[in-house]
Structure formats: structure tokens, C-alpha cells
């Protein structure tokens, strides 16, 4: 039995010791003597969040299929343990073998949201790995970053040795082979990183030099050596059906956020909403073969014993075999002992039938994400959903017995006017009226409409990457105005409106489109005691404000400033397939309120076709 890194006394004192002991069902065990490469995979948040992430399960399974490699895991110690580890000088350890993460060849950190950045520094510092990449030696692991936030890695570039740009399934074998070979030959760390920088998709920040203009924008971004690529093309899995998938995923002992089998049915999205980063960076859309999915569903339920199965994709209604696959799950998998957890679907006869079969109509609600209150603004953001579609869907559902509706909106979208904001309560009122147009005896009591608004954050690699963000006060005023307008509606009593906090959104705005100057800010925030910024109970805006001030950095430079299309953006060295020219055209069309058709209706020539697969070639072979 593995000797634990933490003493009995510590484990009995802290919250949820199960977070730190490993030994989960399907955990991989290997003899350390028989492997050459040790990789520690990290999700920089608490265990329950990290264990719910599909990407890590995919890579964990894939790495461990290599005989010479042992992939283990580490998550952020919760503040109670963080304190004890600092007091007692206990180095951060992996779950599988309970050994210090400093002893690994690689530490791979997935970056799913900006507010985890201070947790990255916590992992490094508790792991006794130098926080700044420049201070590391051959005795330290090579620190990899990956995931959506690595599409603009600049704010954290100096803490990482390498960023893997794109989908993880494609290039790690090459990285491992190169590393193993060079270590055997006694290469220096610098040489190893230099060679890795020549592998497609690998961005080694230390191999590039950034200079700035007087106004703070980027003057130049150049590789330091001739053989280091100027542009990094994102990695993408083209043969989606042959891509590895974890058929024996880890099953945690404690209750985690996603305690279920997750099946990725499709990667990418055909829709092209102009605010959505995922819709651009995962282009082109690729679907998984439905027969393969059926096989995975059977095997994964058998291998995990999970009692729930869910589908993962950006827009499940666009998966072409959704009907066939959903009915298969209901008829052949659910079998009274597996719940089918439905993704949010376009409301139509099919989805209502499915919802009726797998949920209790009285308890479940309809979900719509119009994102904006008026058609004008929905056209600007290229959200295809119309009021007519919403009303039709809602009416069908109301007649089927539903009476709860959830709406998701954003506030602070580019070109948003007061009228657009007021459109949110008005749309809710229209839906309420539609409900009460049904004769009393045919409807199910009162309607309950919940609308929630989040603060729009412009993201890299979207047509809105040049857009100014509202300042928090204007956003708050707008949210209050919407709330007041809700009160004026005839059916105000049937509606509830909530909106998100602004401080965190403003910081996300800074970090999402930030540059290398922010590394020192993040370091200072961390040093002032910030961790778990993604958790309301631990987030402390004051610490961030103090660090901006100390470094003489104006948040507005990153948030409220409108960028010229000609400006060199910090992430311009990455090529996601979708061209900057296309994004600029989309930015222009947004200004004019012109809708762009989705990938299946008509190709708009975004550039992703150059990868040679996915929706761009559907029906063409």
C-alpha cells in the first residue's frame, strides 16, 4: 500500500481528506523503475473541480498507454491544507505515488479560466519549483501549459516553459521522444526547450522577444533564433474517430462536480457567435461517429459503474445523429439505472419528447440563451435565435405541461443601447403573455421565468477581440436599469432577474486580452496572499487593485480601450486557422448588424478549411 505524503494527524484535521489520497477506481499504477518519463498532470483548482474535467482524463489515459511513461495527477490543495503545507514545509505531491511534483520530468497545467492563474503559482511554489521559468534548472520539471487560456498565454508566459497550443491528442509523443533522447545525451535545459520549440504547436515563450511602443501596445514580437517559428499553428485532431478516448475513466470516491460518464459527441461549433471564443478556436467542427459513441457509452458505464451519462459539445443540437444517439441512450442504456443528463437543446418536438422521457416535467425547466434582448443586437452578435423561435418553442413546451423557463443573457455587448437592455425584460414579458394565452385548465399553474445576465468579456480570436469592454460602474448601472424595467412588466411577479458580479469580470477582461507586462502583477497578487480567485469566498479584489497600482498598470488599457484592427495583439503569433482577416470582416459586419450564416448553410471562408477536415468537407468525399 502506498505511503501517504500527509500524516494521519493532518489528514484527520483537514476538510475532505479524500482529495489527497488517490487510489480511485481505474487509477493507473506503474512501477517507477520501469518508466523513463514521469508526467504530472495538474488542474489548478480543488480536486472536485479538477476531477470533473474531461481533457485531463483523455490525456491521462493516452500518456499511460505509453509503456515508458507514467502520468500522475495533482490538484490545488484547499486553503486549509495550503496553510499546513507552508507551516510544516511539506512539498506538493502527486496523488498516485504521493511523491513530490518537483521529481517529475514534466508538470502539465491545464488553463481553463483566467481566474486560476494565482493557483498556478500556488502549485509551483508548494511544489518547490521555481515560479519564474528563467530560474529553473535540469532538476526541475518542464512546465507545460495547455487548454483554452493558452490561446493568449502572454499574461502568464514567464511562469511556463512551454505552451501546447491546440488539442492535446496530437504532439505529445514527439515531445516525449525528443525529451527522452536529449536527456540520455546529456543536453542542457535550454537546448531541450529550443528543440521542443520546433515541434508544431509548441510555444516556448523564452525563445521570443517582445518590444513595446510608448503607448504600451506591442511594437514587435520576434523569435530570438532563426530556427524558432514565427507563427505557431494550433494543433487539431482531424481523424476524430481514431482519437484516443478514455474508456476506463477515473472514478473518484468523493462526490465531484461532474459525477458521471461524459461523452464528447462533437468538437467545434458551426454557429459563429461573435462573442464566443470556443466557437472559433475549435474550428472546424468535427463529429464523432454515432456507432463509436454507442460503444463508448456501453463500455464506460460498465467500467465506471456511474449512474449518469451526459453529452459534451458546444452545441449538441447541431450533432447530426443526435436523435438516433439520444433514443439509443434512452432505450438501451438508461435501463432504469442510468440517468440521461441532457445538454441544453434547441426546443422543438424532438427535444420536448426526450425531456419528457428523462426528466420530471414538473421539476425541469426550458432553457434559452438568446444572449441579447433585441433582434438588432442578436444580429450584431450573430446569435441566430429569433423571438419567433423562442415563442414557438416555449408554446410547444407550455402545452406539454412545462411552466419554468430559464433565459441567459449578456450585458455590455458591443453597440448595446438602452433599448437593447430593456429588451431583456420585454422578451420575458412576451413569453409570460404567451403562457397566459393558454386556457387556464390547460396550463400548469403559474409561469416562472428566470433571467440571468453575465458581463460580456471580449476574448482573443473572436470578432470582438478589438471591442472595448464596459467599465464596471456602467455595467452595474445598466444591470440596475434592467432590474427596474423588470419591475414595470405586467407579469413582473412571475419573473426573476439576477446578474453576475462585476469585479471578477473586469479582471477576466484584463487577463483575457493581456500581455507579458501582467506576469509581474499576477506574481505580486499571489505574493500578497491571493489563491482560489475563482471562488467568491476567497476572491479579494483589493489585492488585485493594489498589484496594478504597484506596477503602475491601468486596467483600462486592457478593458475599455478600443483596439485598432492594425494593432499587434499579444496573441497574433498564434494561427488558429480562422484568419485575422475573417475576424476583422466579422467585426465590420457586426457594426452593420449583418448576420453570417453557419458553416453548414454556407461556408464563409474563415480559413479553418486549411486543416483539411471537419465540417468544411462534409459531404464532399
Amino acid at each position, binding site marked *: *500500500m502506498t505511503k501517504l505524503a500527509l500524516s494521519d494527524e493532518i489528514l*484527520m484535521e483537514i476538510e475532505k481528506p479524500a482529495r489527497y*489520497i488517490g487510489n480511485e477506481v481505474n*487509477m493507473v499504477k506503474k512501477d517507477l523503475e520501469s518508466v523513463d518519463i514521469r508526467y504530472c498532470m495538474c488542474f489548478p483548482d480543488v480536486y472536485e473541480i479538477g476531477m470533473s474535467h474531461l481533457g485531463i482524463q483523455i490525456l491521462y489515459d493516452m500518456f499511460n498507454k505509453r509503456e515508458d511513461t507514467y502520468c500522475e495527477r495533482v490538484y490545488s490543495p484547499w486553503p486549509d491544507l495550503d496553510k499546513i503545507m507552508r507551516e510544516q514545509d511539506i512539498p506538493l505531491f502527486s496523488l498516485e505515488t504521493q511523491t513530490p511534483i518537483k521529481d517529475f520530468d514534466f508538470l502539465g497545467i491545464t488553463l481553463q479560466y483566467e481566474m486560476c492563474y494565482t493557483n498556478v503559482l500556488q502549485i509551483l511554489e508548494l511544489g518547490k519549483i521555481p515560479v519564474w521559468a528563467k530560474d529553473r534548472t535540469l532538476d526541475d520539471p518542464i512546465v507545460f501549459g495547455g487548454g483554452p487560456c493558452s490561446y493568449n498565454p502572454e499574461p502568464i508566459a514567464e511562469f511556463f516553459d512551454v505552451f501546447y497550443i491546440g488539442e492535446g491528442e496530437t504532439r505529445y509523443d514527439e515531445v516525449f521522444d525528443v525529451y527522452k533522447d536529449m536527456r540520455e545525451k546529456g543536453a542542457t535545459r535550454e537546448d531541450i526547450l529550443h528543440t521542443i520549440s520546433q515541434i508544431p504547436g509548441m510555444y516556448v515563450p523564452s525563445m521570443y522577444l517582445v518590444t513595446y511602443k510608448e503607448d504600451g501596445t506591442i511594437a514587435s514580437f520576434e523569435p530570438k533564433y532563426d530556427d524558432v517559428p514565427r507563427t505557431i499553428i494550433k494543433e487539431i485532431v482531424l481523424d476524430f474517430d481514431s482519437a484516443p478516448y478514455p474508456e476506463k475513466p477515473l472514478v473518484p470516491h468523493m462526490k465531484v462536480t461532474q459525477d458521471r460518464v461524459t461523452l464528447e459527441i462533437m468538437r467545434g461549433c458551426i454557429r459563429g457567435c461573435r462573442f464566443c471564443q470556443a466557437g472559433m478556436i475549435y474550428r472546424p467542427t468535427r463529429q464523432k461517429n454515432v456507432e463509436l459513441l454507442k460503444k463508448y457509452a456501453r463500455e464506460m458505464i460498465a467500467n465506471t*459503474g456511474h449512474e449518469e451519462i451526459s453529452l459534451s459539445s458546444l452545441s449538441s443540437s447541431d450533432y447530426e445523429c443526435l436523435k438516433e444517439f439520444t433514443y439509443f441512450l434512452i432505450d438501451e442504456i438508461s435501463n432504469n*439505472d442510468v440517468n440521461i443528463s441532457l445538454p441544453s437543446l434547441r426546443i422543438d418536438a424532438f427535444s420536448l419528447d426526450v425531456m419528457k422521457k428523462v426528466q420530471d416535467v414538473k421539476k425541469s425547466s426550458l432553457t434559452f440563451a438568446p444572449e441579447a434582448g433585441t433582434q438588432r443586437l442578436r444580429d450584431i452578435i450573430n446569435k441566430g435565435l429569433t423571438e419567433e423561435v423562442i415563442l414557438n418553442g416555449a408554446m410547444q413546451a407550455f402545452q406539454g405541461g412545462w411552466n419554468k423557463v430559464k433565459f441567459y443573457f449578456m450585458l455590455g455587448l458591443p453597440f448595446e443601447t438602452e433599448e437593447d437592455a430593456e429588451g431583456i425584460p420585454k422578451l420575458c414579458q412576451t413569453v409570460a403573455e404567451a403562457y397566459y394565452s393558454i386556457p387556464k385548465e390547460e396550463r400548469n399553474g403559474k409561469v416562472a421565468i428566470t433571467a440571468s445576465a453575465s458581463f460580456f468579456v471580449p476574448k482573443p480570436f473572436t470578432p470582438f477581440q478589438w471591442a472595448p469592454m464596459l467599465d464596471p460602474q456602467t455595467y452595474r448601472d445598466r444591470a440596475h436599469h434592467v432590474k427596474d424595467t423588470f419591475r414595470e412588466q405586467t407579469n413582473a411577479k412571475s419573473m426573476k432577474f439576477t446578474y453576475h458580479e462585476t469585479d471578477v469580470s473586469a479582471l477576466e477582461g484584463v487577463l483575457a486580452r493581456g500581455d507579458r507586462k501582467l506576469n509581474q502583477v499576477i506574481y505580486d497578487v499571489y505574493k500578497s496572499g491571493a489563491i482560489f480567485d475563482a471562488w467568491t469566498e476567497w476572491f479579494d479584489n483589493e489585492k488585485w487593485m493594489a498589484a496594478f497600482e504597484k506596477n503602475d498598470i491601468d486596467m483600462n488599457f486592457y478593458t475599455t480601450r478600443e483596439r485598432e484592427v492594425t494593432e499587434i495583439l499579444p496573441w497574433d503569433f498564434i494561427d488558429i486557422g480562422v484568419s485575422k482577416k475573417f475576424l476583422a470582416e466579422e467585426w465590420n459586419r457586426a457594426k452593420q448588424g449583418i448576420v453570417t450564416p453557419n458553416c453548414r448553410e454556407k461556408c464563409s471562408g474563415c480559413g479553418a478549411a486549411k486543416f483539411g477536415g471537419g465540417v468544411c468537407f462534409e459531404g464532399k468525399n
Partner: protein
Amino acid sequence: MKVRIKYTKSGTMKYIGHLDVMRYFQKATKRAGLDIAYSKGFSPHQLMSFAAPLALGVTSEGEYFDAEFNTLVSSDEFVRRYNEQMVDGMAVNDVILLPDNAKNSMSIVAGSDYYVTILDRNSNTEDGCSDDENNLGYSERKTKLLSLVPHLLKKETIEVLRKTKKNEKVEDIKPGIFKLAVVEDKIYMFLATGSEYNLKPESVVEALCKEAGIEYNKFDYHVHRLETYMKNEAGELVSLLESGTRIE
């Protein structure tokens, strides 16, 4: 058909709480492909109930749960299929078929027996610098505690401070102690468990410490449950396995 399953929880699994152990066995039962029965409705759950919850940090080789199955396999097959699905530290020891009118295990539990090991926590330090004073303290403490075991039961009352959710009160725990002895450097204790009267082994250790004039620290002792008992018709304490018969 109702079945009773006896299992072991040891090693690092002692840090897994009771609710998580329940979820663990739900998933293990499904992975093992055993034909467990489900409740009806929109969120069906496995018909499974656990006997006596084990505190975090305690290990056991005498844990039980009852479960309803639609079809059965032999006891040996049950054990084999479960054990194919176990992680380190968990094992299924035996399976019996209960008569239709059997009461569920939780309601019949009347006693448990334990080994309590007195730990030398300083010898576990990895840096190798053993603290002489403390080590001496350990063996003295151990000798003293073990020597007091026979005396404790001779007392008319054994009073300890028991904490409930609402208040604290001094209580005589003697009626809850069925047996107390020293076995191979460990303290063996057989105590009342269950809804009628429940005595934790920690309370007995605390009483011993009080008797010895030693400050009680829960990390100095490891508790291991050996078996869980019920009363048979003659009023004797017998293993929960006595409720039924093995499936051939």
C-alpha cells in the same frame, strides 16, 4: 431477494467517509454486473442499506450492508465478482442470503469488537531524528495503559465526558463495555453499538487515559473494528452473518 454483504475497509480507504463508501459500493455493484434491484420513480436508486457507520480514520474487517437483488449468483461468485472491482484497501469477505422476513442490518446491530493499537508516532518520522524523550514516553505510556486495562473493569462506574451535538455530560460507560482485555500489546474491546446504546472505542481509550493520568490525543491510537454483532433469539451476541445462509 435480500442479501447481506460483509466487507473490509482498510489502508488509505479509512479516509473515505461513510456516504462515499455507500456510493463506492453502488458503483462497484454496477461494475460487477450484479443484478441489483432499483427503486421506482424519476431518480431510481439501488436498494441498499448499511449497518453501522464507521468513523473517519477507523479501519474494519467486519462491515456490512444489505442489498436487494433481482437474481442471485453463489456466495463465492458474489465475492469473486465484487473483489475484481475493489481498490486497494477494500475487499468483500462474505455474502449470505437473508430470509424474506429478515430485519435490515442497521436495526439489529447490537455490538462490535475492536483492536486499539497504541501508536508510536515519533518512530514514523522520515528524517530519522528520533526524539528520545518522546520515545521513552511512548513505551511508558503503553505499559501504563495496558496495565490499567484489568483495573478499569473492576471499577463500579467508568465516567467520561461525552459530547453530543447540544451539550456535554458526564456519563458512566461501563454498561456499554462487554469485554476489555490486552491481546498481544493491543487493547481488545467488545462494546455496545447501534441505536439502543452506542459506545465508541475512543471513549474507552479516553477513560483509560484518565485513569493513567495521561492526556488523551486521538492520533496516538488506531482503532480497527473486527466484527459487528446482533443478538440471536437466545440473547447472545453473534455475527451479523448468522442471519442467513451462504448461497451455494
